[in-house]
C-alpha cells in the first residue's frame, strides 16, 4: 500500500539553526514527491516538488530511493518558516496524492 510517514508531529528549532523535516514513503512505483506548507491564516500551498530539483525559500529536498526518503532541509531557519509542513506522494495512474500526517515546525527567536 502507498504510504507517507512524517515521524515528527512537532519540531522546534532556534532561528539560524539548521532544520530537517523527515519524510519516508512506501510505494512500489516510481515516486513523485512534494512538500506542501500551510502558514498561519493562509491556504495550503505547494512548497517544492522533487522533479523540479529547485530551492524555494531556502528549502531543498532530495529524493533518496534507496532509503525511500524525501527529507526537507534548510541550513538556517527563519521565524517565518514556522508552519505546518506536509509531504505528499503522487500515485501514478490515479491522479491523486497521498499526504503524510504533517509536521508542525516552530522557529524560536
Amino acid at each position: 500500500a502507498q504510504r507517507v510517514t512524517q515521524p515528527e508531529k512537532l519540531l522546534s528549532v532556534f532561528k539560524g539553526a539548521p532544520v530537517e523535516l523527515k519524510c519516508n514513503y512506501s510505494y512500489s512505483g516510481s515516486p513523485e514527491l512534494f512538500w506542501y506548507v500551510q502558514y498561519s491564516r493562509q491556504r495550503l500551498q505547494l512548497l517544492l516538488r522533487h522533479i523540479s530539483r529547485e530551492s524555494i525559500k531556502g528549502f531543498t529536498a532530495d529524493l533518496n530511493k534507496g532509503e525511500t526518503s524525501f527529507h526537507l532541509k534548510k541550513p538556517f531557519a527563519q521565524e517565518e518558516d514556522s508552519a505546518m509542513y506536509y509531504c505528499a506522494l503522487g500515485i501514478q495512474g490515479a491522479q491523486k496524492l497521498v499526504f503524510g500526517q504533517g509536521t508542525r515546525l516552530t522557529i524560536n527567536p
Partner: protein
Amino acid sequence: DAGITQSPRHKVTETGTPVTLRCHQTENHRYMYWYRQDPGHGLRLIHYSYGVKDTDKGEVSDGYSVSRSKTEDFLLTLESATSSQTSVYFCAISELAGITDTQYFGPGTRLTVL
C-alpha cells in the same frame, strides 16, 4: 490565491442530519479534490473528480458522496452526519493530472457534528 471558494466556511450540525459542502472554482481546472484534515492523520482524500460527472473514491470515502454537474462546482455531501465526520474539509483543484501538477487549495470548511 487561485480562484477557489468553499461554502460554508463554518458549520455546526447535529448527528443524523444531511450536510452539503460546496467548492467553487473560477480557474476552469479539470481536476477537483475533497480532503479532510484531522490531527494525527494529516490530509486524507475523500473523493475526487477528473471531469464533469466523472468522480472516484479516495481513501476515506465511506459516508460521503460527491457530485460535479458543472466544471466549476464540486459538492461533497454527508448523507447522515456522524461525530466522526467532525473535521476541516479542504477542496483542491489542479489543471493537469494531480500527481504532476500543483494542487491549489481552498480556505477550508470547519464542520462540527454534535
